[in-house]
């Protein structure tokens, strides 16, 4: 159990730190890093590589935004195996829907309740 937490820290931390390094070295904006990570996540779904990383690091791999790109490809292909090419359109949001829905609902109510801070 301790090892699982340690792996989550190391992999999650490393993913964030590498992003920060690229951001500083190439003088980019945060949005470039998030987009790069989403793109890399969707590519690293090949051969279930990203699933193996999640198996190893747990939340260390499933919380970074790269898992968003991974989940989209993964669920699209899962549905495509059932429905053919149409499945890609049907399945895109299968796995990510919960996170996006939660973000929309919480963002809505919290912005209703709280006041913007300088």
């Amino acid at each position, binding site marked *: *159990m301790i090892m*699982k*937490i340690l792996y*989550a*820290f190391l*992999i*999650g*931390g490393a*993913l*964030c*730190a590498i*992003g*920060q*390094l690229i*951001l*500083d*070295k190439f*003088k980019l904006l*945060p*949005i470039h*890093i*998030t*987009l790069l990570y989403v*793109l890399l996540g*969707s*590519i690293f*779904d*090949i051969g279930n590589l990203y699933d193996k990383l999640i198996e190893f*690091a*747990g*939340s*260390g791999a499933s*919380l*970074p*935004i*790269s898992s*968003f*790109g991974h989940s*989209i*490809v993964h669920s*699209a292909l899962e549905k495509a195996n059932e429905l053919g090419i149409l499945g*890609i*359109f049907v399945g*895109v949001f299968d796995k*990510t829907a*919960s*996170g*996006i829905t*939660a*973000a*929309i609902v*919480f*963002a*809505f109510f*919290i*912005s*209703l309740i709280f*006041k*913007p*801070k300088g």
Partner: protein
Amino acid sequence: MNQKIEKVKKETSPKRKVFFNFIMAFIIGGIICIIGELFTMLFIKLKVEKDIANIYSVIVMVFLGSLTTGLGLYDKLGQIAGCGTIIPITGFANSMTSSALESKSEGVILGIINNMFKLAGSVIVAGVVSGVVVGAIRYLLGI
């Protein structure tokens, strides 16, 4: 002339503390992932299936990211942590909540609902486009 401009640019632009930023992103990003992992473990302890526990954990982290943004804490943390707060899913929740909060003064419909995806929309567009392209290629090639 251009060289002069470049020189002045170099002298006046703030120096990025590359090593410090790297370490802070590592530590804070890692801690956010630990919190997520602890929630996953908690849900597994409550006899939730592993995949479902992961979904619960993501939802809790999104809620925490959103709440700390509302309290004004997340952006303060972000000034130190950089990518450590941007890359985890809490950063996604933060970008949605903060753009909704910022435009709250324009009202619920024109402000909050209209502007919520101002920053976060790019992530969804990029995710869907790259996901569909990669997915279609892999489906057609059978890999």
